[in-house]
């Protein structure tokens, strides 16, 4: 797929993200200057409809940015901001600009207090919360999904981090929200868990493509027993296996991205998140197996990518969560046969 915004993002990330910037971020330094460039390029608006200020590119293309960011190990909440803006726009709320992040809101409690909506409860494992201006989440009020735009400065943030050292904080909410920051969601996009899962499977696919090419390069360069290790058939098999898992993850993630905002999304995203999470285990393990000791150090860039794909498995539903959901659907499907369930699950326009 030729895409101008993809080319732009590739260039931007290639020129401005290096091992030092990623290590700095893992040590707690938010790369502000890079974020400014990303905002200047307009990337956080890519998934917003044209009428709300977006680029007017197809959703799948806009979501491709998340894969590209993953491929470069971008240590910033671009995926989260992209999705937050799309959800805010869908609810008719103001797009506030700046860094945003997203959280599952299932543990939040909403009450109406006069004109305001009072929100309280915990948000857990919120990516980049302490680097974000707002957390966008979805929670139910009187059985209706509402989008909430929560200013981080008004929350109680408890810092924590994921395996890769990226911020993944908890946030306590106890806040009254006006119409400007809370609105019903007229038509679902798949819930914050689904949208977050889509982002993570796309980023995982991108990061795995980078891991794979780093590993191929290493296998060509590293000499043991008098020849490049890539000449050994065992290493070739590892690489072929990594390629299969990587390709499957990308196909799965793009299948889900392709069904964004359609009824097929509920099941394709379940397939995508669980498939890429499973692949992350294999791809990470084999990449380290091929790299040997050098890949196990912080000097080498490999660890940043493997740790991130392992972290992403635990966000927005684990493999276990998503496969259960998919399996439950398969086993309770009213279709005649499992085959009909499979063909219908990916078909556009058939209710899932």
């Amino acid at each position, binding site marked *: *797929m030729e895409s101008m915004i993809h080319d732009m993002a590739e260039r931007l990330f290639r020129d401005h993200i290096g091992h030092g910037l990623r290590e700095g971020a893992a040590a707690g330094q938010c790369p502000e200057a890079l974020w400014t460039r990303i905002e200047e390029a307009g990337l956080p608006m890519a998934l917003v409809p044209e009428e709300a200020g977006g680029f007017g590119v197809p959703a*799948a293309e806009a979501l491709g940015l998340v894969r590209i960011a993953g491929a470069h190990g971008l240590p910033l909440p671009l995926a989260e901001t992209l999705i937050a803006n799309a959800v805010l726009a869908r609810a008719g709320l103001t797009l506030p600009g700046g860094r945003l992040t997203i959280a599952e809101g299932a543990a939040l409690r909403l009450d109406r207090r006069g004109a305001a909506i009072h929100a309280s409860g915990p948000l857990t494992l919120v990516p980049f919360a302490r680097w974000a201006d707002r957390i966008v989440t979805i929670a139910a009020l009187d059985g209706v999904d509402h989008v909430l735009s929560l200013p981080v400065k008004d929350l109680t943030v408890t810092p924590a981090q994921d395996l890769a050292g990226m911020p993944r904080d908890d946030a306590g909410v106890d806040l009254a929200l006006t119409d400007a920051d809370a609105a019903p969601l007229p038509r679902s996009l798949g819930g914050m868990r689904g949208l977050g899962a889509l982002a993570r499977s796309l980023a995982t696919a991108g990061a795995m*493509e980078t891991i*794979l*090419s780093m590993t*191929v390069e290493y*296998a*060509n360069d590293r000499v043991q027993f008098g020849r*490049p290790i*890539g000449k050994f*058939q065992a290493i*070739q*098999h590892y*690489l*072929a*296996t990594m*390629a*299969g898992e*990587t*390709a*499957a993850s*990308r*196909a*799965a993630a*793009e*299948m889900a991205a*392709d069904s964004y905002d359609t009824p097929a999304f509920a*099941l*394709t995203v*379940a*397939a*995508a998140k*669980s*498939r890429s999470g*499973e692949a992350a285990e294999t791809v990470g393990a084999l990449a380290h197996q091929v790299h040997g000791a050098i890949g196990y150090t912080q000097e080498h860039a490999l660890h940043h990518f493997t740790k991130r794909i392992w972290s992403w498995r635990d966000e927005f539903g684990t*493999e*276990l969560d*998503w*496969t*259960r*959901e*998919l*399996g*439950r*659907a*398969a*086993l309770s499907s009213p279709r005649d*046969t*499992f*085959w009909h*369930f*499979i*063909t219908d*699950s*990916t*078909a*556009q326009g058939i209710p899932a």
Partner: protein
Amino acid sequence: MTLTAFPPPPPGADYDDLRQEVRAFLAEELAGFPPEKRAESWNGFSRAFSRKLAQRGWVGMTFPREYGGHARSALERYVVSEELLAAGAPVISHWIADRQSGPLILAKGTEEQKRAIVPRIAAGELCFCIGMSEPDSGSDLAATRTVATEVEGGFRVNGTKVWTTYAHVADYMILFCRTGKSDDRHGGMSQFLIDLKATENIQISPIIDLGGEHHFNQVIFDDTFLPSDALLGEKGEGWSQVMSELAFERSGPERFLSSFALIEELIRVLRQDATEAQQAEIGRLSAHLMVLRQMSRSVAGMLNEGKNPALQAAIVKDLGALYEQDIPRLARSLVSRPAVPGGRDSYAAVLAYTELAVPSFSLRGGTREILRGIIARGLGLR
């Protein structure tokens, strides 16, 4: 990294009307066809079924109309293929001809060969087999020893082919053999189109497989005379012809649906009250299948656009073979019920059949080791 990119199939690739027509046809034709027969997957043989299917226009779908075909897209053919396989329809009597030999003849055959053969393939009347493997050449085709020597008016063939699927009932064979000595391991090979019913001095004897079934044969050529017009394509170009032919043999739905009857049985058994863990495993199985199918359809879409996704096809085939070979293990990890060959319990019977069938899945069209070598080189390993 284009190797790991599988663009989604084009919009509309579902061909839902066609799919529903095929389903209705299969529901009628296969009513009462038991699960243990469906488990045979594309090894099931029925000339009658193939002919009926052809009457609906679903054999030779992509062939040009002038040769009895229907000029439909590879993606429409894909829909029919996957519906047939998922239903466990007995397709082998036309399958090889439809998938592999027909396209080869169309690409390399003479006008006479095309006119004589292709319409009959599209009518579901011809069963083809492929004379490729030999006792000393399994994956290593360059070790082929069967030789066709040019004589007055044609060729004399001597040598032995093995693992020739359904040779004992087939009408035609596509033979791969030497036509010359060559220093180049790949040179001096040719292909022939053999009318098995009309050719003398071919001895076909059964090779019984470990499930006790007769699908394979040994085929001995003993000074067999082939007329000149049996040559298919260019003399000496057999190697490159076969390599492009093998591409047809890769990455279709037959590469991951071979155990599908067992999956249907497993889900039937679990449908009543599955535990959370069983749900999760069925979900995993579903996710893998959805993704394999997406990748396989993506390859079909690329082929349809005239691209050459050879490496993507190798990836699908490797993943697909692992998937379909793993299904009996998966079933046994979820349900404690013994496999009983031919048992009255259809789950037990299908499990038994499939357990004995899976070792053959990675033999087809190139072994795992060769596929992985192709993939590794495609990744840029030097």
